[in-house]
């Protein structure tokens, strides 16, 4: 039916694990945070925005990135927390764009306040970076209709790899599903449009997995 099995490059399901590594850089106050942000490895910015999805975190945190959470809980600056919390990494192009946006928001706040907001000694911001290990699950999908069942059974690491990590390595900065379906012609345009509407930043990996599976079921059938 339309898409021939033979012509489709299989979708290889991969999985990943993140290792967290302390950078040794710590900020006691907002100015130090700004200064470290100017020089810290881009991996560290990535970790503080996206790493939360794969480490001890909760399904509905108040702030989706570590900088906003620190501003609220440790600097007790809700205005800054809100401004940092609204930054969406998917809007900033790349990590350098994200870095620039963060610094801009912090500098604006520094210019507004007479005293530099500071944290208690046991509330320092510790910059962490990550290493990612990607491995093959030895599962291959030979046709899009297998996606419904396959995504529902994917590990959270696989969801992270194919949705979050994909955005930093695919040419159009899209998830791996859209990249694969896009190669199969216009037949899947509506599906890709729905996939594009899923917000990976304001979601947990578990919810993301459910949302994706529902979208695949709606367009492709199959599943439970």
């Amino acid at each position, binding site marked *: 039916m339309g898409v021939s099995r033979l012509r489709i490059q299989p979708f290889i399901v991969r999985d990943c694990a993140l290792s967290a590594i302390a950078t040794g850089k710590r900020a006691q106050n907002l100015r130090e945070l700004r200064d470290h942000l100017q020089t810290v490895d881009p991996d560290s910015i990535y970790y503080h925005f996206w790493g939360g999805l794969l480490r001890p975190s909760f399904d509905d945190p108040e702030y989706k990135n570590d900088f906003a959470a620190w501003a609220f809980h440790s600097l007790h600056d809700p205005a800054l927390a809100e401004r940092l919390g609204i930054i969406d990494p998917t809007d900033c192009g790349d990590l350098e764009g994200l870095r620039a946006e963060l610094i801009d928001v912090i500098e604006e706040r520094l210019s507004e306040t007479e005293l530099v907001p500071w944290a208690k000694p*046991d509330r320092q911001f510790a910059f962490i970076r990550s290493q990612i*290990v990607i491995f093959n699950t030895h599962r291959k999908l030979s046709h899009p209709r297998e996606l419904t069942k396959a995504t529902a059974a994917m590990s959270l690491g696989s969801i992270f790899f194919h949705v979050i990590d994909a955005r930093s390595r695919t040419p159009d900065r899209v998830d791996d599903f859209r990249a694969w379906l896009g190669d199969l012609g216009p037949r899947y345009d509506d599906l890709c449009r729905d996939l594009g509407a899923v917000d990976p930043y304001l979601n947990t990996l578990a919810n993301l997995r459910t949302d994706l599976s529902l979208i695949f079921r709606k367009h492709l059938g199959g599943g439970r």
Partner: protein
Amino acid sequence: MTAGMLESLATIAGRDVVEHLHQLAAPLKGMRVVHVNSTRVGGGVAEILAKLVPLKRELGIDASWEVIAGEEEFYRCTKSFHNSLQGTIAPVSDRLLRVFEETGVRNAEALRPVLQDADLVFIHDPQPAPLLRHTPNRKGKWVWRCHIDVSRPYRPTWKYLRPFLAEYDASIFSLAAFSQSLPHPEYLIPPSIDPLSEKNQELPQEEIDAVRERFGIDPMRPLLVQVSRFDRFKDPIGVIRAYRLAKTFLPYLQLVLAGGGATDDPEGNAVLAEVEEASRDDPDIHVLLLPPDAHRTINALQRAADVVLQKSLREGFGLTVSEAMWKGKPVIGGDTGGIRLQVVDHHTGFLVSTPEGAALRIRYLFSDRERLQAMGRKAREFVRENFLLTRQLREYLALMVTLTRGAGDRVELD
């Protein structure tokens, strides 16, 4: 540990989680990995190695566990290191430092055949740290695993130990706050609980009832439990104050303060005496001094509780929090250290800074039983996702892959 532990963990953590471990471990198959610490039994490190090493073997890794030997003076020295790395001012004499170094040389000689050819060596805590220096023809990567809170060490001790540690290829700390300046990657791996251990496994209801009866706890009335050493940093007096404040509104409330091993600790005995004095006039406060191996009793008390407290003023990691959460209990914890990582405020429990704050949360939870139970369920799921042994093992495997591949921040396996 018996074969099939992974299979048992799969029934608890999920088959996909165990499958993930197999895939991650595939490139490590046959690798010789040696863990070294200073004791085979007793203490958290031995407890975790007794699980991690057989699990790695089940995954096809040639893992082994070696223990160094020392005389009484060596252990006196390392006990001082332990205390001073956690901030106590505890100078160590030159004589004891010499004993430490000589013991390192002797153990390195004894373990040389194993250590020299290993692909990866994990050295746990400071006791065996000099082994690396005395294994000059080592083949593999060496990692120093620090299990203690070294966020504010007594500087002379850190200054003495740092040159031994700086030579390692990497180190592991439990929290970013504990990491120190070292010239190699410092990995962060929080500890975890073993859901199959006596402390955490499911118990028959009769056993929980028997423990209640043994300590005179009324099963029909609400129960608060704090499990911790009798130590000022655990704030048992603050817990009693919180209980009393809440009891004004919840007259049937009961409190258990259970801890052990204070007999050889003068400070611990003094705190225990204060706690007993503070609770003397209230038959609903049960102060229980338990032996160190009373794991099933602790397990039963946590299961008997409605709400668990860990109102520490300062805490390293505080795994008793995850233990309680695994039993489906919301935890009211002190807003400090690793407790912040485990208690998600308003979701799996509450973070508090004062007895008054704890009392308010106790009242709140007992005023809404449905909410209490919902929080308990969330707490258990949170531990399932984040603080089970399988997660710690996964992080060890990821670290092992990146260290042995040496391929920067992105390692792709096929």
